[in-house]
């Protein structure tokens, strides 16, 4: 801590991995851009530390839109929707990354599908804050780009229908979700037989759900849930080969990169939403 006294704050925070107390951090923030990387203009992750887990069962205390019509597109995509009445554009959000974490996949998808609108959903407020700053930073440094991506803090296990209308989404991502090993906590898993009903509701027919994990047990669980659900069918290997998004599941996400770094295994399950037969 004595560095703080002897050196200018910005300099110390650039070079020293000091774990700062709450007060020191708030002082840093009040000084301006020190939580941002000077060369890239992007937020620095270490200032957005958060607990790895969040209880999805607890009552939420953040604002939730009353219905999908109440989602303010002008806040999320100001260049595309200048006014809150959505008059500027007929497009709607089509991709949802549920539990987007630090936003790696959203950022990659944004340039891969520049015409599609996409949103990351994350329950941890600090992490959401980081992704928000990251997107704002990218928009500033790359004018005209990253206007189609945004992030929202929410509990998607409870409020997915408040954000999307029936059949609105064409892709949903569940990448490296919390494994919740204990049996009594299985109901906290983001892929579960009952929640798949809701995901099938917001996905259009032919829409694709991507799941991946580095935990074998969870991988088996997610695949079994999807296989047993009458409104999802498995996608063939040839189609997976041809889908540019599948490669991003590991390479674009922070968790995926970590697994690759450690030489770990991943388990993916990619399914298509189909009409209910019979």
């Amino acid at each position, binding site marked *: 801590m004595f560095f703080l006294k002897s050196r200018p704050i910005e300099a110390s925070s650039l070079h020293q991995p000091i774990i700062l107390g709450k007060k020191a951090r708030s002082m840093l923030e*009040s000084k301006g851009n020190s939580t941002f990387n000077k060369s890239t203009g992007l937020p620095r992750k270490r200032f957005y530390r958060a607990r790895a887990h969040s209880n*999805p069962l607890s009552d939420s*205390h953040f604002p939730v839109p009353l219905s999908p019509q109440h989602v303010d597109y002008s806040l999320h995509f100001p260049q595309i929707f200048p006014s809150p009445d959505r008059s500027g554009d007929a497009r709607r959000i089509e991709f949802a990354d549920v539990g987007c974490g630090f936003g790696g996949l959203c950022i990659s998808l944004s340039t891969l599908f520049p015409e599609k609108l996409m949103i990351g959903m994350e329950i941890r407020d600090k992490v959401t804050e980081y992704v928000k700053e990251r997107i704002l930073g990218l928009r500033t440094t790359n004018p005209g780009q990253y206007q189609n991506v945004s992030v929202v803090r929410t509990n998607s296990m*409870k409020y997915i*229908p408040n954000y999307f209308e029936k059949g609105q989404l064409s892709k949903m991502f569940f990448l490296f979700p919390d494994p919740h090993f204990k049996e009594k906590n299985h109901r906290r898993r983001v892929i579960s*037989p009952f929640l798949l009903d809701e995901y*099938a*509701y917001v996905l259009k027919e032919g829409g694709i759900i991507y799941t991946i994990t580095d935990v074998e047990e969870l991988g088996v669980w997610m695949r079994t849930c999807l296989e047993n659900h009458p409104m999802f069918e498995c996608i063939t290997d040839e189609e997976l080969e041809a889908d540019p998004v599948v490669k991003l599941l590991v390479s674009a996400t922070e968790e995926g990169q970590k697994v690759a770094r450690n030489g770990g295994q991943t388990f993916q399950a990619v399914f298509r939403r189909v009409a209910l037969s*019979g």
Partner: protein
Amino acid sequence: MEEAQMKEEFKTETNETQMEEKETEDTQLEEKDSYLQTEVAPALIALHPFDQSIAVTVGSELRIFNLVKNCAVSLADESKEMLHRDSIRALRFSDSGKLLVSAGDDKLVKIWGAESWQCLCTVNSEKRVSAVAISKDEQYVCFADKFGVVWIVDLVGLAENQPNPDKNAVAIFGHYCSIITSLEFSPDGRFIVSADRDFKIRVSVFPKYPLKGVHEIQSFCLGHSEFVSCLTFVHNSDFPQGFLVSGSGDSTVCMWDVTSGSLLCTSDVGREANLSEESHPAVTDLYATADGSLVAVAIQRQALEIPLSFDLLLSILQGILLLSCDLSAKRLSMLKVVPVPGETFIPTRLGTKLSGNLLWMVTGASNLPGTKESSFARIRAVSCFKKKSNDSDLEPRVLEDTEVPGGDQLLEKLQGSVSVESTVFSAAADALNAAMSSLLRKKQYSDEKRDFRKKTRNDKKFKQ
């Protein structure tokens, strides 16, 4: 400015230890209170669709009166094992009137034959049951638990005189960890509608083989800004599918098209009945007439935070609201207030049969803390609950006890006694309000208090 803030912070830090001690006490008290509060259960009422009998519950007690023979009915087997052991929270006759289903806090769902009053079947639930519904073809009973899971029991092979105790429930769909407050089948039997405390109404397609699960969601009806407390369908021969009407803790009644989930009309009953703006009394129950022209609305007693003058006290709603319902224009509009003269009668549940024009109301509670008689029930009936007519004699009004069908015998059976001491009514109404809001309203904590609660979570306590 910043300095002042720093000082403030320092001050709170030094006081923290003292505050924590005090807060522990507070939270403990609070939790104990809310635990007691949620045990208070409202009295329920259900009417046989063809007017043969009327059922009332108070706490764990199920009381039946036969309206045809004008006599009290005793359940076929009144031995202890056959009865409910804790408050009944859901009560419903099937559409044909053959079955009555009761369920509640003792995690038992009991299916009664409405002729013999035998318990045909008892189903064990994993959690406390909060709502029940019976499919239109009477093949299935669905019930919802407090964890948001809807279960189904198929009634094949269930017949009077051969009680079949071995029925198991299968989970068919769920609201993610949210108390389900109401379950309802659409009039054509195509949809099952469920409402929860997270402001949501889910309309699911009820499949041919529901035991395999109910996966297809038709729509979500979203627009309430508080818990949804009750659902009913308004329909008639011109509109056989009808529209869904829902009541909520935000003091509104909404009308929905279930196929699309679109909101057709909102009636702010709190405001339209000229109730004070701040209190936002919750809508507790709804009932529509068979021709779909009227909707009766029961609302909570308003919280009285400030002492009121006598005039104001009189203007507090005691009774029910009637909304007129125009199905072709898809509109609900305030028609009138039917006052209950003489007593503080805040109905806890409404009931009516398919034909006829009596609307039954019950007020009552069980497990009332701090009173001599811990439970009571009071029954009233409103006449001329049908489409408004020009004849002023046919205005809806509350019947005197002597005019109620069944008279004293009915009151004695269903209320427990002919006359009920009305002094407990307002205390009970307040206790029920508190119970309902502690169960269904989201608790609002200040930031410090929330942090404190995080620190003292149960899973952390064990580690010490």
